[in-house]
């Protein structure tokens, strides 16, 4: 695992991660025609709306966070699109899958 603080495109791999201890939020960003969006920026905001993390999407539009249990907001920024917010609930030991569709 990285010992830095940066987010690699698509998110950190689940290899070697004890999922029972994690509250994973992951998914893909697509345009309305289902084309995945690489290089979009997905921001994870806490229940108060404060920034908690951000990941650029990978080549297949994928992203992943290791949040805590609770309610979160995913805010997605992409070129030529307005920001899109999606609410998500994370639980320990579970993977919350989210599909984000952006305009244009």
């Amino acid at each position: 695992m990285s010992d830095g603080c940066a987010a690699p495109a698509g998110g950190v791999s689940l290899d070697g991660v004890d999922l029972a201890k994690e509250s994973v939020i992951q998914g893909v960003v697509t345009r309305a025609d289902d084309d995945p969006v690489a290089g979009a920026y997905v921001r994870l905001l806490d229940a108060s709306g404060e920034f908690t993390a951000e990941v650029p999407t990978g080549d297949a539009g994928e992203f992943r966070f290791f949040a805590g249990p609770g309610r979160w907001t995913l805010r997605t920024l992409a070129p030529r699109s307005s920001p899109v917010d999606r609410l998500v609930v994370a639980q320990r030991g579970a993977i919350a899958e989210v599909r984000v569709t952006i305009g244009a």
Partner: protein
Amino acid sequence: MSRETALVSADWVEQHRNDPNVVLVEVDEDTSAYDKNHIAGAVRLDWKADLQDPVRRDFVNKEQFEALLASRGIGNDDTVVLYGGNNNWFAAYAHWYFKLFGHPDVRLLDGGRKIWELESRELVTDVPQRPAAEYTASDPDLAIRAFRDEVVAAIGAKNLVDVRSPDEFAGRLLAPAHLPQEQSQRGGHIPTARNIPWSKAASDDGTFRSDDELRALYGDAGLDLATDTIAYCRIGERSAHTWFVLHELLGVSNVKNYDGSWTEYGSLVGVPIAVGDEPGEAT
């Protein structure tokens, strides 16, 4: 120090793309970002392989920094413009190194890689070949770097600013939420530290907020900038972002970055830790 001498816009970078005295430098933790593409003419610095000592947990020293910049073709008289991913966290960290070693003219691209990508500006794969230069660094300026003993002594005495997310500050998360949460350090924060997340100083697109907004941010948080301030995060790069805001944009001179940050503090034996959303008391 001011916004005019510390920051450049994306337009400014495009206008200076053929200026031989301007060196663009991309700094990422994930060096594959540069390999994939980068702004035309930019050279790369790796925050770890290039800026950290390969054996001891510390920076490169003066001689290593001189050799690094010489090899990248960067001279003392060049205007260095740093940018990178993650909202310029690692570019700000490298910027702080350049200041530590006395580089006269070093700036950040406002918004970093993100604004460049969101505005669909040109990115290339060509790697520039810059001839080696001569570089002479100053001795490290320890007026901008804090060490652990000074941090422990600052509890209840100086401003401690924890720039991590509220959940990391409280101890509910042990790392930024794009990383797995199983970590060796304890959770929480240094007692009496105020939580002013780095992200409050930037817009969603990664550009810095206006000087007036920034002054209001720290003022509303009750931070008396006449008192010495130490900023920290987890490994020192998000706090370099806040150091940049306070020292370079707002011109506050008595600010240090604690680069050991929570990775060091949360592993120390016997030091006090506060958990929860409140700063906590000095004991």
